[in-house]
């Protein structure tokens, strides 16, 4: 337990101390909310889909958690570059505990970031159905955060330089975001895209958060929950396996 706790605390301290990073990463959802939210709002409304900000806000929460958690996972690469990884690897600790502590820490920062975005969304005019819906939304946020931090960790175990990081952002993270239905409804999209959306874990995360917060869900919240739960387990297992294989 101590091991998990101290590594969790380390991630949290690093997060809280990097204020520029926190602020910079809030800029993006803010931009989307203002740009897309108010830009597409009228079109969306005319198409009979209701208020676009209501629809978009859960997507922004999902997006923020995705980016923050993938990044905290991939931070492992920086630990390697700056050397702290060696300190962890040589400690008399099972690798699994190290990995879990790190992942939970990264996931916590992503959740905090997600909560900040909820606040921003509310300021921009977003209104969740009810306060009682928030705990359910929160559960989905946790699953999304754990899942993608574990994925980021697994990727970082095999990456050794910044170019690789760029590749991951462009060819994995951005598609995960765009195909997830964060920006548009998944009903009525072309079959090929629907297929991709169906295998994108974030689709279920955004859908679950949306279901909880505005009562509109594409897959159904139960399915969202099951898929995310299983995927989170799978990615944790992959991350743990990759981490246990790192050599200094």
């Amino acid at each position, binding site marked *: 337990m*101590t*091991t998990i706790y*101290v590594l969790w605390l*380390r991630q949290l*301290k*690093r997060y809280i*101390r*990097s204020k520029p990073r926190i602020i910079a990463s809030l800029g993006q959802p803010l931009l989307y909310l203002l740009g897309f939210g108010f830009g597409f709002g009228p079109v969306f409304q005319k198409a009979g889909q209701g208020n676009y900000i209501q629809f978009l806000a859960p997507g922004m929460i999902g997006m923020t958690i995705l980016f923050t958690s993938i990044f905290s996972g991939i931070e492992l690469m920086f630990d390697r570059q*700056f*050397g*702290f*990884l*060696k*300190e*962890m*690897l*040589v*400690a*008399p*600790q*099972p690798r699994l505990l190290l990995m879990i502590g790190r992942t939970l820490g990264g996931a916590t920062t992503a959740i905090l970031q997600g909560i900040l975005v909820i606040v921003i969304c509310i300021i921009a005019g977003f209104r969740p159905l009810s306060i009682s819906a928030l705990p359910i939304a929160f559960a989905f946020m946790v699953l999304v955060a754990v899942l993608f931090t574990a994925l980021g960790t697994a990727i970082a175990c*095999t*990456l*050794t*330089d910044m*170019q*690789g990081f760029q*590749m991951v952002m462009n060819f994995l993270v951005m598609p995960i975001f765009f195909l997830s239905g964060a920006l548009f409804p998944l009903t009525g999209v072309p079959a090929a895209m629907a297929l991709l959306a169906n295998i994108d874990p974030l689709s279920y995360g955004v859908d679950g958060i949306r279901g909880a917060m505005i009562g509109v869900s594409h897959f159904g919240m139960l399915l969202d929950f099951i898929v995310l739960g299983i995927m989170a387990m799978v990615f944790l297992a992959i991350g743990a396996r990759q981490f246990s294989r790192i*050599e*200094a």
Partner: protein
Amino acid sequence: MIRVEHLTKTFGEIQAVRDVSFEVGMGEIFAFLGPNGAGKTTTIKMLTTLLRPTSGKVEIDGLDPAHQQNEVRKRFGIVFQDPSLDDELTAAENLDLHGALYHVPRKLRVERTESLLKLFELWDRRNDPVKQFSGGMRRRLEIARGLLHTPKIIFLDEPTLGLDPQTRNQLWAQVKKLNEEERVTVFLTTHYMDEADRVAHRIAVIDHGAIVAQGTPAELKQQTNSETLEQAFLALTGSSIRDEGAEANRDLRNMAKMWRGRR
């Protein structure tokens, strides 16, 4: 305390360590000397559970680092050749995290942190993030960290790299004191021959992955008819620069890593 028999490590084509054997007794200060790329760090990595030997036998305090990893890890402290601190954390936080990872009870952790930071003259800066530290301060902090859990053995891979003469002297004085008072076994590498001459009880010289001489500083000087250990070292390892091959290998290695990363 440390027993190594016919230890070999190959990275693809490169034989980084070949058929190395030596023993380090309990309470001994043992210096492992060799030109750049000789295989010192690779040997240390195998002794400290970070790399698996290609072949050969290693025993640390009677245990096998390849199989009883955590038991072995509890017994040693290490100062890596390259930095390994968390820059965002403060000096005290780095030590505390280390203590927690090494199962040091909280109260003892606090006490040891204080005494070590004072010993290495970092106490006043304990709440500053490491990123604000100079190179010498970082190095001192790494050494303090390696000692926090009162290890039986300490591995020092070029601990005085980048330190000024004052700090170097002070550091070796502390290492000697620790060795005498707490019977800590010391395994060190350095490129400063005078330091090795002064602190080491015994020395092994390694070149191109193989041991070329072993003995006390006096014995090595005698063997080579040299006045100083530096002359003895040059006599044993020649005076040509060894790094070229090693550097080329390192470049290749980095390139391979990059390609692996891309896929």
